[in-house]
């Protein structure tokens, strides 16, 4: 175990991997990543493996689009010998009432203005894309053909392998127990395997981001919530896009190896539990078979839960803080940390090194919650 490092990153999910890679690529290679379990053991490895650009806030659209552009070339950029399974087969977003339809018209106009090629479709046009879609009680849909699927495990592995080649050290099976702050500056990270002196700590702890913030005395206004998900046996391909609905509370895609993955976001007490419940299973089965009837014939083989780390405006917090010099965070992704990761890594590395950032980061700063009215609120969350 190292006793000193220029940067200590807490969390071995995709955010930590992308931040490590981006810093290392900029020449800052003295980095230690601390992960209490395994690579992608937290939210990254539990997510729905979708990547989309169809958002309701300008910030989310902007970073999602740039992230997709990275994924298109990620295997070459990271020189990865595996398969990240990036498949752009689109996201079909279903509206089931007038309010939602009106919101989607605004979303599509925003997305188009930012160069995202989303189309507003009639139920019939939606059925042309997903023939087994039940259009009963459906008002309209939106479709973006360049959204898609990405494998969370291999995408993270690709970042880690590239980061390791640049000299980044990764300690799995290691827990952070405390962060030492003196005179308003980060001094060290205490783990169960020893203490690492450092000037910079980066909180990429996903569902545990608030607890890591507390260790440094930084109050981050996020909370975690269990979101459940299931997977079926693999079958021959018959559904190209991810199908989602905010009002029906479902996302559902057939992944490249043939299984269907589907989840929903039942409102739960905040907490760190990732339990699997029969209530989720019942509601998920009713919703999925109602919207996509042939799925009734598929066998569920596994269910699990994972943590959404929710921020007040459901946009990420990618930020430093005046309270503690040297403490940075990438959290509050509200269920979308996987798909934004390339921008998380890029923007935070720029911020830390004092470079001009690729996009203005005021709307991602922790200070945006300092008693001011929020400028934006993301409604497009399952």
């Amino acid at each position, binding site marked *: 175990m190292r006793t000193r490092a220029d940067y200590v990153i807490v969390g071995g999910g995709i955010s930590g991997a992308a931040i490590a890679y981006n810093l290392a690529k900029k020449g800052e290679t003295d980095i230690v990543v601390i992960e209490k379990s395994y690579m992608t053991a937290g939210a990254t490895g539990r997510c729905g493996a979708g990547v989309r650009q169809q958002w309701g806030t300008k910030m989310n659209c902007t970073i999602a689009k740039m992230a997709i552009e990275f994924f298109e070339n990620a295997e070459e950029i990271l020189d990865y010998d595996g398969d990240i399974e990036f498949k752009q087969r689109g996201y079909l977003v279903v509206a089931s009432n007038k309010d939602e339809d009106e919101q989607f018209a605004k979303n599509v106009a925003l997305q188009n203005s930012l160069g995202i090629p989303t189309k507003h479709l009639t139920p019939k046009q939606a059925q042309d894309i997903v023939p087994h879609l039940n259009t009963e009680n459906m008002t309209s849909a939106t479709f973006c053909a360049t959204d898609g699927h990405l494998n969370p*495990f291999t995408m993270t592995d690709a970042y880690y392998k590239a980061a390791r080649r640049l000299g980044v050290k990764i300690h799995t099976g290691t827990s952070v127990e405390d962060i030492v702050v003196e005179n308003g500056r980060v001094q060290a990270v205490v783990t169960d395997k020893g203490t690492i002196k450092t000037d910079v700590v980066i909180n990429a702890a996903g569902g545990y981001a608030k607890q890591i913030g507390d260790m440094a005395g930084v109050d981050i206004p996020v909370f975690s919530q269990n979101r459940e998900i299931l997977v079926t046996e693999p079958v021959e391909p018959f559904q190209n896009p991810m199908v989602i609905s905010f009002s029906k509370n479902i996302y559902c895609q057939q992944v490249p190896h043939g299984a269907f993955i589907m989840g929903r976001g039942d409102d739960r007490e905040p907490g760190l539990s990732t339990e*699997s419940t029969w209530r989720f299973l*019942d509601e998920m089965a009713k919703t999925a078979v109602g919207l996509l009837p042939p799925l009734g014939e598929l066998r569920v083989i596994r269910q699990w839960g994972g943590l959404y780390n929710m921020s007040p405006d459901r946009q990420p917090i990618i930020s430093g803080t005046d309270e503690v010099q040297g403490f940075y965070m990438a959290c509050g992704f509200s269920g979308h940390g996987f798909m934004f990761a390339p921008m998380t890594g890029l923007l935070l590395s720029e911020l830390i090194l004092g470079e001009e950032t690729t996009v203005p980061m005021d709307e991602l700063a922790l200070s945006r919650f300092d008693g001011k009215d929020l400028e934006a609120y993301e409604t497009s969350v399952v």
Partner: protein
Amino acid sequence: MKNEDIVICRCSDVTLADLYELFEQGYDNFEELKRIARVGMGPCQGNTCAKMIQWEIAKYFDRPLEACAIKNIRPFTMGVKLQAIKEAAEDED
């Protein structure tokens, strides 16, 4: 029999040779192997491969068998159709 002909994970078609290659790359535990090679993620949920992989990890890395953890046990124990779950849920409603 050649290692490339010995199928360890039947659901995801992973051979003993594949496993050794992953060991050489540094994936030395079931959780990481699962994430990279999909072992334990298919219809049998590791009921076929998990014990064999545990043995192979122990042998290859010269560790005691009990030090090699295998998979998490998650629902389900066998596949159930979504339609059957939906109908049962509606009966209860």
